[in-house]
């Protein structure tokens, strides 16, 4: 009986926070081969850390470039286009705005989304990163969502839970979370 209890505890501990697969959607009929150039819009930041949105946006640009599939527009140019179009919040962008922005930036798709969790959790004497992001790609000509993914990363594994060490830095956790989310698109 005791052995069963020990195994049950160990199994519970062995489930790290970030091991779940990303929930995702890929448009069944969209021709992704037309997408050669993309723009990454500022992410909606739902966390307490005011700078986290921009940090994750930069990491997303890096991961898109690293994928080597599409060209990514310099974020400064994207910001300028948003200012010129008088768009204050990315949550208010409509299909017509996407069309205009797409034409001015010369991109076929936009990446945008939200940062839901970006924090360090204290557990067992250790501190571990936790990142949850929701990303989507929108076709510039129609404003249609052609891909979306939500993924949580970081967290703590069995070693961290038991001994209070291990785990990634915030940057590493962010990078891995974005990479896992993008893998559902570029696999």
């Amino acid at each position, binding site marked *: 009986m005791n052995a069963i209890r020990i195994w049950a505890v160990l199994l519970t501990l062995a489930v790290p926070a970030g091991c779940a697969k990303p929930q995702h959607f890929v448009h069944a009929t969209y021709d992704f081969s037309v997408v050669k150039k993309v723009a990454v819009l500022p992410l909606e930041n739902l966390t307490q850390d005011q700078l986290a949105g*921009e940090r994750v946006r930069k990491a997303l640009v890096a991961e898109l470039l690293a994928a080597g599939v599409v*060209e*990514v527009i*310099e974020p400064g140019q994207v*910001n300028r286009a948003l200012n010129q179009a008088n768009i204050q919040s990315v949550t208010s962008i409509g299909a017509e705005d996407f069309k205009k922005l797409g034409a001015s930036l010369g991109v076929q798709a936009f990446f945008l989304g939200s940062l839901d969790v970006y924090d360090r959790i204290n557990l067992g004497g250790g501190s571990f990163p936790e990142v949850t992001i929701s990303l989507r790609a929108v076709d510039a000509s129609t404003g249609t969502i052609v891909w979306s993914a939500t993924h949580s990363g970081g967290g703590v594994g069995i070693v961290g839970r038991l001994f209070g060490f291990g785990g990634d830095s915030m940057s590493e956790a962010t990078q891995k979370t974005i990479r896992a989310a993008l893998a559902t698109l570029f696999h």
Partner: protein
Amino acid sequence: MPRMRSFARLAGTLLAVLVVLAPAWPAAAQEAASLALLPFENVSGSLEAVRIVMPLLGQAVRDRGYRLADPGRLDAFLARYRIRNTGRLSRTHLAALRRELGVGLAMVGSVAIFNDSAGNPQWGLSARVLAADSGAILWAAGAGLTGDDFTIALGLGTITSGPRLAEETVKALLRDLARAGEPLVMPSRGRPVLSRLFGIKASYRSPTLESDPPRRVAVLPFENLSERKGAGRIVEDIFTVALARHGRFEIVEPGAVSEALVAIGAAPYGNIDLETLAALRQRVEVDAVILGTVLNYSEGLKRAGAATSPEVTLDARMLDAETGRIVWFAERVLNGDDSRIAMHFGTIKAMVPLVLKAASEVLDTL
């Protein structure tokens, strides 16, 4: 007889040339050995830092045979031209410095950190020597030390005095500054074999970097997304040092970049739009620009008790100045303990060497 006459004519011409040029030679040599040491910009947050470090820098530069511009005349010059940001110099100000003070070189720099804790003080400096005539960066270096860096065992050897540690940091900073009259060269670091095999890889590297590599590069202000005030400026300075020592590109002095941006009326901060990039390209004639972000910057200081290891996370990307395309992107997360071999050996305890290492490793992927 005609041969004698032509010989006399030749000798006369040579003599005339010597008479004309003779006064200019010592003047040129004197100018090359004379240096204006500008007050280092203080990003450390400690009011004492510059007061402690400038006399030490002055003495160390004089010991290398340089003739320093008179501090009174330099102060008057800075006041006349309203130069407040003395950590960088524009081409216009460098030319005026040469014209009015007769110097051939100018040394600019910044104090990145001065933590005057008796337990474990820490200093961090970066410096550049600029040619007054061309504005070129001739030499650049960064150095940082903590009191713990001198500990042998059981706390023996630890430097606990801030001013004493400043002497050692200045010595480390100017270690490879050539003596006056000798060519200012920076030893090329080269990419270690292990780093080539196991080092970090760029997130993205465009094939155009092989076919059409940039020659002249400018570093733009880094965006600071860390909690440390001024970290963007510190990393920008240290990144410029790393790039200069990388030796692959001709680097535009940040003062010339600032001057151009003021003229354009733009203040890019971690990002740049194509219009500003095109205007910048025209003014400072660059083939590419480097932008970056400081994501984490922790000097490893604790308010009380022992210090922890410093940490830095930065990213950098290169944009083709003509097309605005991102041609390179790399990121580095580095902790002082990452290079530890055994016990405390190999650990990087000071912030500036850590940032310099992170910047150099990022640049190795370029």
